[in-house]
């Protein structure tokens, strides 16, 4: 058995396709919907956990691709908790991509999630627990 968390993005034209039904009924994959936002006529997004045999899951994913659903693995994301951060800068030399940076005028530390590669370095070195790791469900 295999288990994985994925993000499905549906283009507008297939939002009304019952893809979850097909995954379950045609491929025997167990689908656990963790979060979904789907409006008829608009692009939709769904975070799911799939459980099934490897072959079932890969066939199911081929089906999704064939109908135009964009499938990406669920990423973890790092959050910077402003109210816990004291801008001490202890994270700065450990961040490999300068996602955590200090403005040397204001001395405030800021976090750019776009630059973050989720290496977890900051989690280990922040003494104020101002960095947290969360699954990217939004």
């Amino acid at each position, binding site marked *: 058995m295999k288990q994985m968390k994925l993000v499905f993005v549906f283009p507008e034209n297939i939002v009304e396709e019952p893809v979850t039904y097909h995954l379950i009924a045609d491929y025997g994959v167990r689908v656990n919907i963790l979060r979904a936002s789907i409006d008829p006529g608009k692009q939709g997004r769904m975070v799911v956990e799939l459980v099934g045999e490897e072959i079932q899951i890969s066939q199911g994913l081929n089906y999704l691709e064939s109908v135009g659903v964009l499938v990406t693995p669920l990423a973890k994301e790092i959050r910077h908790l402003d109210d816990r951060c*004291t*801008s*001490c800068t202890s994270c*700065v*030399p450990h961040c490999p991509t300068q996602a955590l940076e200090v403005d040397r005028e*204001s001395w405030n530390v800021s976090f750019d999630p776009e630059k973050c590669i989720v290496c977890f370095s900051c989690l*280990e*070195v922040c*003494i*104020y627990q101002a960095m947290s790791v969360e699954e990217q469900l939004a």
Partner: protein
Amino acid sequence: MAKTIEEINAKIRSGKVVVFTAEEIIDVVQEKGVKQAVREVDVVTTGTFSPMCSSGAFFNVKQPKEKMKLGGGFATLNGVPAYAGLAAADIYVGATAIPDGDPRNSNGRPGKFRYGGAHVIEDLVAGKKVLLRGGGYGTDCYPRKTREQMVGLEDMNDAFLFNPRNCYQNYNVAVNLSDKPIYTYMGKLKPKLGNAYYCSAGQLSPLFNDPYFRTIGIGTRVFLSGAEGYVAWPGTQHNPNAPRLKNGTPQTPAGTVALIGDMRQMTTEWLRAVCYTGYGVTLSLAVGVPIPILDEDMLRSVSITDEQLKAPVVDYSEFYPTGQGEAKLGEVTYKELKSGSIHIKDQDVPTGSFSSYALARKVAHHLKQLIQDGDFLLTQFQAPFPGAVIEKETAK
């Protein structure tokens, strides 16, 4: 034309006092010159916000109806052991205490240290209750033998921080020369000079601004994490004999202060528990010391800049722990440290700090505001520190 502390306090009371932070004063002196600025400026405020391990709190816990002697027995707060070798109801919780049986470095390196004495102190300051467990042997006057009760600051007769050593005047810059990462009280140090950590507010740091303890002594009133605190004594390891630069500031860790202050006046904005991976728990505190500008020498002291302050670079993989190897890898200015990179052994080494300059600035501004509003008066110390040079240059 010397000023006295009484004259400055009179100006504070009448709302006419002129105050700058130790950062602002640099430009003021540069613009106006010492001679003019000394006539105009009365007080310069300093500030720091940083982990200060040698901190802790005394509590006197209200007795239950059937009284109990914790003294000679034991006490824990949320599982964190407190020192109970005092009278019946007095206990002391050190910032770095951790619960017995807490997984530490022995149990999968590096340990995480999620809760300790500092957290007990922060929880109480935040208005939370913690679980007091006590045990004693029972006496005729204190018959109760066990106690288990949720207690907050309202359940204490007294609760005050009493910190044996705070506000180090200068500190080492920590690096790692070895080929594996190490976890220290100066943070995670990457191998082969992968990074460097410093821990001082530099030009805003209280004791850097009064290098010879002319105005800071026993009894000096300070800002301590939201409370009006006091210098109780020279701090432990206070060393006025450290080597000094020509400008009078020490080149190695030197003076320290023991501070005391009422926990009920403190807030979690200025007091935070911290966890160092692989090292332990400790407490970050905000300290601000106002410096009366008595004369030109005092003004020169407080207008010192990061460029004029130097710290030693020390290897924490060998020299610091074992005393073996190279004692000092070099000396760098705080300006270099704050630029984000220093040069050691032909290598550019990225820097980070554990002392928050952003919050140090906030402390200095907060104290400035308190003084301008007439809510904080300056004090004449009751006794000087060892090594204080009170009349140093005034005779000249």
